[in-house]
């Protein structure tokens, strides 16, 4: 991963009838973990999708290594940015290895089939998230946490520099949360940049180098988690008055 493999968003704006994102600017360096927090509807998912090149911004730009993500070919984008969506798919009968392999589809030649290289990549990805033993299992039979890991493997299989994760810890039990956090920490140690939207503030404190707080499409605050995650700010961000100096979600 080269030093300029950073993701830079400038003045990104997006909305339908109402604006969902207003002039968001941020920068993610290689190996950094940036957390996106905010109330539901603040624009976290939209921002992640725009960062991943899945949605074109209405104004502003997102550059990866100096190039517009929207102008990257599917193959280039897969190799650069991994995306873990919020919801697990109803994977109608596919096996784990088939799901992970789909992460490589855009890298296969037009009429080509997967070969040894691809299988090795699948195996590597599954090992990185410590679920290689699930290789032949049917995806639909896995637990929520296992499925999440497999999808993470899929996001990783093309060896991207940056991972975009949309609420990866949602609905996982505490055991899985800890395991998943450990996995992400290991990835971060390997130099993968992580952009994680989450509601779990403890995760943010544990792993994030920087946190961006979104409120109704705008950046409310950003910076070092310890400094940013103060009760008044959290109350403002989440529209409540329950955050106190002692309690944390």
């Amino acid at each position, binding site marked *: 991963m080269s030093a300029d493999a950073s993701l830079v968003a400038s003045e990104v704006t997006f909305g339908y009838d109402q604006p969902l994102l207003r002039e968001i600017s941020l920068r993610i360096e290689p190996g950094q973990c940036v957390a996106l927090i905010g109330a539901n509807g603040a624009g976290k998912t939209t921002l992640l999708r725009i960062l991943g090149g899945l949605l074109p911004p209405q104004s502003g730009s997102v550059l990866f290594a100096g190039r517009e993500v929207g102008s990257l070919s599917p193959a280039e984008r897969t190799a650069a940015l991994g995306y873990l969506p919020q919801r697990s798919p109803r994977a*109608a009968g596919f096996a784990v290895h*088939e799901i992970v392999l789909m992460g490589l*589809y855009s890298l296969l030649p037009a009429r080509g089939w997967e070969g*040894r290289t691809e*299988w090795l990549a699948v195996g590597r990805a599954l090992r990185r998230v410590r679920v290689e033993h699930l290789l032949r299992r049917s995806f639909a039979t896995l637990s929520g946490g296992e499925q999440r890991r497999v999808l993470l493997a899929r996001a990783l299989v093309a060896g991207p520099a940056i991972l975009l994760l949309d609420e990866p810890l949602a609905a996982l039990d505490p055991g899985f949360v800890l395991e998943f956090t450990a996995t992400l920490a290991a990835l971060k140690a390997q130099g993968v940049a992580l952009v994680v939207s989450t509601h779990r503030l403890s995760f943010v404190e544990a792993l994030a180098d920087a946190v961006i707080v979104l409120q109704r499409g705008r950046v409310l605050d950003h910076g070092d988690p310890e400094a940013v995650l103060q009760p008044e700010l959290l109350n403002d961000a989440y529209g409540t008055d329950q955050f106190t100096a002692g309690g944390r979600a």
Partner: protein
Amino acid sequence: MSPPVTARRRRARIVVLSGTLLAGALLVGPLVGATDIDLGAVWSDPFDWAGNPAAAIFFMARLPRVLLAALVGGSLALAGATYQSLLRNPLASPYTLGVTAGASLMTFLVIRFLPGSGLAEFTVPGAALAGALATTMLVMVLATRTGGTPPTVLLLAGVTLNFTIGAAVLLVQYFADYTATARMVRWMMGDLEGATYRLLAVLFVASLPVWVLLLRCGRTFNLMSLGLEEAQAHGIDAGRATRRGLLLASWLTGVAVAVAGPVGFVGILVPHAVRLVGGVDYRVVLPGALLGGAGFLVVCDVLARVAIRPVELPIGVLTACLGGPFFLFLLLRRGFARD
């Protein structure tokens, strides 16, 4: 760690399996029929149909039917697999979006208002095809107006059209006289008879490019069947892929229904049968459906012609008789409901 059986190898297996079924059916099909003919006599003078009744039966009454069955069966099964992927519904069939309703309406209008039309050979099929395509367009427009192309919207639009056009069909049937109504009812049963080699050639030319285009969509359908978000996450324009796929599948269905009437069960069942044997990867299911559907319908046609010969059973009855129990088996099979 060694890779499991690769998709490529599974596809090869499925192609060989279904291809063999098809080849066998194509071979046996023209050899049996409502009567017994002397095959030696057929080949002694194969082109003198007027003077050689055995050859006439073989080349005029049997072979075109067998070929038509293969064409229609393959197209319907491939279309069905496409619908099941894009609508993300295992119960989707080529008729879910109202294609048959549109084809029926146009056919019945022709039967009612142009009973003795001179352009006969292409009038009814032409009308049916026009109706089928018009309905598909209508579904697309309806869906785009009301909410884009996620499957639920499309399904709703299709169901709506099915009911509405179905009502119109009933109305036309009601106001037609007895003979016209009888003809309409017979059309609905489906019929593989009546194909000339010229029509078969037209059908083949009209279907082959669409087959090729759809067969290439294996990866896309894999991704689409996981969900719109999933597909988009992998760089697929889900809306465009859906529209394109549905149009192609509707074209195949329209062409099939135009010539053979609405033959049921093939489109919904054959893809499931292929999945049972070859797995859910669409790169395997699509070619399997094309070949397997063709073989299946040829077998059904043979049974329809031979079971109580010389009386013929409507093809729809055969597909239902073979297909129904299989579908029951699928339903009862552990895990199907979960997929």
